[in-house]
């Protein structure tokens, strides 16, 4: 047994233990803390699976942003009155049996791989040179399966619309109910002044490097969102009202440019979402830059929640 397999087994044991504790914990707060830790461990697992792009995404979005949302929710839910009664014992046993069956089915499926494992990796690499990209995952996201990526951005916008639509009618167009902790000269203010320049550089780097190495629009966008949320929470910039035109333009600019380049492909290249030969890389980088901005703003706004206050004049 090599040292790496010992490491893997330890990691799996930790993942399972913490995962189970997030389900079993009595306190919601403890469960959420467990979940954040779990998210970080999970991104190590992704590195062990040689999927660094996924590891970055998981750490940024799966652990970071989701954890932040949940912590905020736990804090607000403290005031909730009364709790539901726990499911009865027979119901829990039935659910346990059902879950065990599903898990066992999956385990059987995983333990019985096909004899010759099929893969698209060679095909991806053969054709990657045409696009000028060096990162095969970016190639799949922006070249071969660009349609999925484009539609997934629309999903993000719909989710934002869904969150906004929960606002009461009288505050529509108002300011999201992000909790602001504005205390002048606090340490948080210091952090919010110091970190964003670094964070923006990191975001640009991630977006740029995504074309040839792990990284890309999602990861860069998440870092941008985190920086924006930080300065808003510290009260350095005000939370914008959702009726601002610039805000809405920023949210859609990525998908719009993506769509426009895709449509241009019908004329200039052979097909929708095809890139004219020789121009693939600059076009993809342009799309990625715009998407990074849009994802950053959209994620930030998703975390900020529905409008809760009317804009003060």
């Amino acid at each position, binding site marked *: 047994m090599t040292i790496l397999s010992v490491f893997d087994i330890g990691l799996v044991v930790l993942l399972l233990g913490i995962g189970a504790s997030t389900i079993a914990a009595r306190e919601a707060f403890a469960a959420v803390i467990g979940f954040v830790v779990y*998210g970080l461990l999970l991104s190590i697992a992704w590195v062990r699976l040689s999927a660094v792009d996924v590891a970055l995404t998981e750490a940024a979005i799966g652990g970071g942003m989701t954890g932040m949302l949940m912590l905020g929710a736990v804090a607000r*839910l403290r005031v909730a009155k009364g709790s539901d009664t726990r499911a009865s014992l027979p119901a829990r046993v039935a659910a346990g049996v059902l879950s065990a069956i599903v898990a066992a089915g999956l385990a059987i499926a995983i333990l019985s791989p096909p004899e010759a494992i099929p893969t698209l990796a060679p095909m991806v690499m053969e054709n990657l040179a045409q696009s000028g990209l060096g990162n095969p995952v970016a190639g799949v996201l922006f070249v071969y399966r660009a349609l999925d990526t484009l539609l997934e951005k629309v999903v993000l916008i719909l989710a934002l619309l869904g*969150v906004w639509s929960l606002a009461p009618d009288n505050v529509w167009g108002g300011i999201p109910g992000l909790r602001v902790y504005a205390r002048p000269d606090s340490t948080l203010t210091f952090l919010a002044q110091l970190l964003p320049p670094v964070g923006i550089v990191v975001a640009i780097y991630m977006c740029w490097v995504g074309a040839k190495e792990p990284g890309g629009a999602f990861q860069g966008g998440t870092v941008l969102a985190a920086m924006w949320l930080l300065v808003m929470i510290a009260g350095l910039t005000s939370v914008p009202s959702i009726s601002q035109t610039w805000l809405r333009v920023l949210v859609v600019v990525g998908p719009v440019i993506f769509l426009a380049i895709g449509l241009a492909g019908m004329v200039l290249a052979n097909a929708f979402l095809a890139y004219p030969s020789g121009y693939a890389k600059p076009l993809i980088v342009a799309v990625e830059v715009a998407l990074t901005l849009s994802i950053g703003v959209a994620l930030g706004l998703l975390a900020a929640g529905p409008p809760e206050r009317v804009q003060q004049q």
Partner: protein
Amino acid sequence: MTAATLFGLCGAALVGFGLYGLVTNPEPLRKILAFNLLGSGVFLVFGVVSRRAAASGLGGDPVPQAMVITAIVVAFAATAMAIALVLRLLQETGRSTLSADNPGGTDTDRGNS
């Protein structure tokens, strides 16, 4: 057993945990958390599929990896929407519960009777 299979089995177990939590836990926030656990188990299954299919000098098949990235973003969007719903429900009723009994006693003229 390869490392990939090990993580795959871990993913299968996490799917089981998540499903159990989603079904049995009464608090909506805990259900959302369980959904995220379930989701991460599913993503690990993609990871195994990718890792097993390593070829052409890559550590894994990039296609499933790209799919997971898409799915992680979708799962985050879903979480954000669900949490916003829970918080709005709290604002409206002072409670956050899914039980069918009349929440908050507001106008029930048209709803679930």
